[in-house]
């Protein structure tokens, strides 16, 4: 199983994400945003957290128009897996690979602390190691994590069981406490909290490690 981690100017969770993938048994290659293709045989693309392009214009907006994004879209269209965390989630909504938008937190504060999340669905390669309704704790660190979408989009997400995680307490104003969502084919996950920062007992918990483990197994068999 091979993972590619995209790196933009201002990415700062790229190496943490690579460590989490490696711990789950993946080979990892870092891919610079100016590249136009992914390495051969990539099963999953990780879009890391950080402040790509200094959050200029809108969070994730410039990164979402980078040269590498064409290859990401082709990978997803082929049915490949993609995982966008924090700024990576913002990039995924800016590309249109996931619906909705992420705007400034409702109370304007940068929120940086572990938060409790409910696993809403286990029907995905990202969440099948959890149990439905389980509480997991991942850290968040974001200023623009307030998820919004039209009522139709929210209904579609709910109807198709595509909300992967919800905040136990609504920390940032997100519609229906949404913290992470899946694509229609359930192979793209975007979430604001950081599972890669909770994937080692030395680093504030291991709740996130299961996400990478189940993903590694799924991508090998896919």
């Amino acid at each position, binding site marked *: 199983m091979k993972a590619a981690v995209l790196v933009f100017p201002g990415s700062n969770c790229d190496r943490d994400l690579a460590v989490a993938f490696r711990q789950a048994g993946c080979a990892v290659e870092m891919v610079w945003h100016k590249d136009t293709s992914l390495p051969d045989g990539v099963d999953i693309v990780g879009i890391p957290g950080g402040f790509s392009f200094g959050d200029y*214009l*809108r969070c994730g*907006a410039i990164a979402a*128009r980078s040269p590498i994004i064409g290859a990401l879209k082709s990978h997803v269209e082929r049915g490949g897996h993609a995982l966008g965390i924090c700024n990576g989630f913002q990039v995924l*909504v*800016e590309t249109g690979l996931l*619906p*909705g*938008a992420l*705007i*400034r*937190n*409702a*109370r*304007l504060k940068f929120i940086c602390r572990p938060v409790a999340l409910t696993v809403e669905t286990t029907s995905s390669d990202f969440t099948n190691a959890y149990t439905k309704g389980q509480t997991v704790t991942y850290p968040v660190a974001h200023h623009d994590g*307030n998820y*919004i*979408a039209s009522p139709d989009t929210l209904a579609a997400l709910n109807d198709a069981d595509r909300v992967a995680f919800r905040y136990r307490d609504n920390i940032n*104003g997100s519609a229906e406490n949404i913290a992470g969502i899946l694509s229609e084919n359930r192979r793209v996950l975007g979430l604001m909290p950081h599972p890669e920062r909770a994937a080692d007992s030395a680093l504030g918990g291991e709740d996130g490690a299961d996400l990478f483990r189940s993903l590694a197994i799924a991508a090998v068999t896919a």
Partner: protein
Amino acid sequence: MKARVHIMLKAGVLDPQGEAIRHALGTLGFEGVAGVRQGKVIEIEIAATDEDAAKAEVARMCEALLANTVIESYTVEIL
């Protein structure tokens, strides 16, 4: 030719920054501020000489990058 783009959050999209400004204006003693919305202004120098063509080109830029039309609306004026 110069184009000016105004980008605003669509009606109904919460604007926490606008709300913070509204509160601050109240603190400063400005009464009767019913609402504040904060947007962006982007000015673009463009080679086109035809006004309609320039406007259409800038509108394409808005759709492609400058605005997130999920949450934002935009207007283009040619200066």
